[in-house]
């Protein structure tokens, strides 16, 4: 999984805040997506009811998670779909590489899948000499530019059409520069059509895995997911263990909130439900279908009732669209596969808090994310919880989050210990505040992050206690 060092997060933020083109691209895209979503939820009662319903559906499915996973596995196998389990990203990559090697696969077409980004599947397969081509238009653009997605729903929003036109001139034979969107899409379509036709393997993600019937559901608009799961002889789907739902009845409300929250659509252009590989007599469809179930830290989040709510996420992207921080710094500054609010609460479980301790702090806790989240994840509360975990003494048991204490600074910890001490004893409190006022000239001008945008505070000449005391004395004298 791609991740930058924490020290680079601050650097990235500075870099991207100072890029006016990038900021314009994000601002435009976020305004567009917010408007779309708003237009899709005009009935406040309907929104509130559906949100509560979907939250409860996901919470029920999580409470039954291990049993649903077993049921899903059993039904998929009965349907002829093979199931594989991976605790880590390495295991997932290995499973997929082996499946491809067994069929002597040389070329893979990939539908949009954030979990495949999470395991960095492309890099792994390319090392094995397998060509791995992204086919979602946004992902294709990002792959050509040798970048990573900056948004989980719209991967290429950080680029505008003229930037993409230039990119196509460099990479598509015979393409004459154009910034006309139809022309650009047509050019992409032509390149990718050949690839669909020739690919040995299709890889996709999964939006919902239905335990009751053993069905894999895919939500998309372009048709590349259908191509990847229909045309090549081998289809491999990869998903996180939290994507399993109990029954078909759970699908309609979740689907409705997913597409409306993501892009404001009542439903996506395609909703694809896959239950078997090609059956005898059928003329198309993959001859074999596999599902890879990935843990990668999810069972850690699961182990804490509060943090478990992270797994309710249906990856709609609404929280990033409405996040003032995301809108300004863009998706790349985070340095993680999942950017924005959902990334801040999910990534620490995948990478540990040592590598990610800046993320929970990069929030104003304004609460916009929680308000729009279709499954009611209390994101600000979880951010505060992760902040706490990141400064907890490392040795504390139990270890709730991998890398706990990763953001603990000895000086800071000492200051808070002193603070607690001082506030427990009245005489010590009076004595030390008095000392502070007398020594105010010692206050340094530079107080780290506090003074990057503010002037340093200067203690008053006398403490409030002293002033009140004096006042009372004067009052008595009168």
């Amino acid at each position: 999984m791609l991740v930058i060092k924490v020290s680079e997060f601050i650097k990235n933020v500075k870099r991207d805040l100072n890029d006016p083109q990038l900021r314009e691209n994000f601002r435009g895209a976020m305004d567009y997506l917010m408007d779309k979503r708003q237009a899709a939820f005009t009935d406040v009662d309907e929104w509130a009811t559906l949100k509560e319903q979907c939250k409860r559906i996901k919470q029920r499915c999580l409470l039954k998670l291990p049993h649903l996973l077993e049921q899903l596995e059993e039904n998929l196998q009965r349907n002829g779909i093979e199931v594989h389990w991976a605790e880590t990203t390495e295991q997932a990559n290995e499973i997929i590489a082996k499946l491809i090697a067994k069929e002597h696969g040389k070329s893979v077409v990939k539908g949009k899948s954030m979990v495949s980004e999470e395991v960095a599947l492309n890099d792994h397969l390319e090392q094995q000499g397998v060509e791995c081509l992204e086919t979602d238009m946004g992902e294709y653009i990002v792959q050509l530019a040798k970048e990573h997605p900056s948004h989980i729903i719209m991967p290429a929003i950080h680029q505008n059409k003229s930037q993409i036109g230039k990119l196509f001139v460099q990479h598509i034979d015979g393409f004459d520069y154009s910034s006309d969107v139809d022309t650009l899409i047509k050019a992409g379509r032509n390149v990718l059509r050949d690839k669909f036709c020739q690919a040995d393997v299709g890889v996709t993600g999964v939006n919902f895995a239905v335990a009751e019937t053993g069905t894999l559901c895919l939500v998309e608009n372009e048709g590349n997911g259908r191509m990847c799961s229909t045309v090549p002889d081998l289809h491999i789907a990869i998903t996180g263990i939290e994507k399993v739902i109990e029954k078909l009845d759970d699908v309609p409300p979740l689907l409705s909130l997913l597409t409306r929250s993501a892009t404001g659509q009542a439903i996506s252009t395609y909703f694809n439900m896959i239950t078997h590989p090609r059956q005898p007599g059928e003329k198309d469809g993959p001859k074999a279908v596999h599902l890879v179930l990935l843990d990668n830290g999810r069972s850690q989040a699961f182990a804490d009732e509060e943090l478990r709510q992270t797994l309710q996420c249906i990856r709609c992207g609404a929280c990033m669209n409405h996040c003032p921080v995301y809108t300004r710094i863009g998706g790349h500054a985070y340095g993680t596969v999942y950017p924005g609010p959902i990334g801040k609460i999910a990534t620490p479980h995948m990478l540990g808090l040592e590598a990610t301790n800046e993320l929970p702090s990069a929030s104003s806790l304004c609460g916009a994310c929680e308000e729009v989240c279709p499954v009611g994840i209390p994101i600000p509360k979880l951010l505060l919880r992760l902040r706490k975990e990141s400064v907890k003494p490392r040795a504390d048991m139990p270890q709730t989050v991998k890398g706990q204490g990763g953001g603990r600074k000895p000086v800071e910890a000492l200051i808070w210990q002193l603070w607690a001490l001082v506030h427990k004893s009245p005489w010590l409190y009076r004595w030390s505040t008095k000392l502070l006022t007398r020594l105010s000239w010692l206050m340094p001008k530079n107080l780290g992050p506090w003074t990057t945008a503010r002037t340093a505070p200067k203690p008053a000449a006398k403490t409030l206690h002293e002033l009140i005391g004096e006042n009372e004395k004067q009052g008595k004298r009168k």
Partner: protein
Amino acid sequence: MTNQSARNNILAKLKSQVAGADYDKLPKETGFEYPKLSREQQLEQFVGHLESNHAQVVKTSKAQIAEVVARELKSLGIDRLLYGKSGQYSEEIQALKGSVTLQEFDFVVESQAKQNLFDNTPAAITGAHSAIAATGTIVLWPTVEEPRTLSLVPPVHFVIVDAEQLYANFALLMNEQQWHNKMPTNVVLISGPSKTADIQQTLAYGAHGPEKLVVLLLVG
């Protein structure tokens, strides 16, 4: 089965967390009651959604299928049509013989036939299993006669929808037809031509699937 130890580890970790869970005490999941619509209103809703999603809807009758398709193909400048021989409406479609070249989907999608499907098939026609009013959605339940790629690969897709098969919403459709008892290899819900807004939020049609969706809605 592969990865036994990963499987056991994951399941054991999860199970230890929910060992005492009481599944009888889960909170009620109340759904939203949508206002009931009349037949006409449902049809209007269905057509409205499809049209705003850039599909072309033609209200017609079973007897006029050939005529409508011939007219539309002509206006698109297309002279060939791929169809499934013993599909739901194959008789009506065969009436097109003479005005266009009808090509049967009688091949397995591999090697040369596959290449041909991608390169030399400008249009295809299928029936539909059912339809959903609330979202303007056509439900395809591909069969041996009308395979999955028939509605996916050719750039123009004609689909015949019987208005009698229109359901108010997705949940109702699955319940009334008891989908949980038996799911086919593939079901696909289609709500317009293929599209993308991946470049600067600008809508473009025909990303990877059909760029044109013509819906023949049988109302008479």
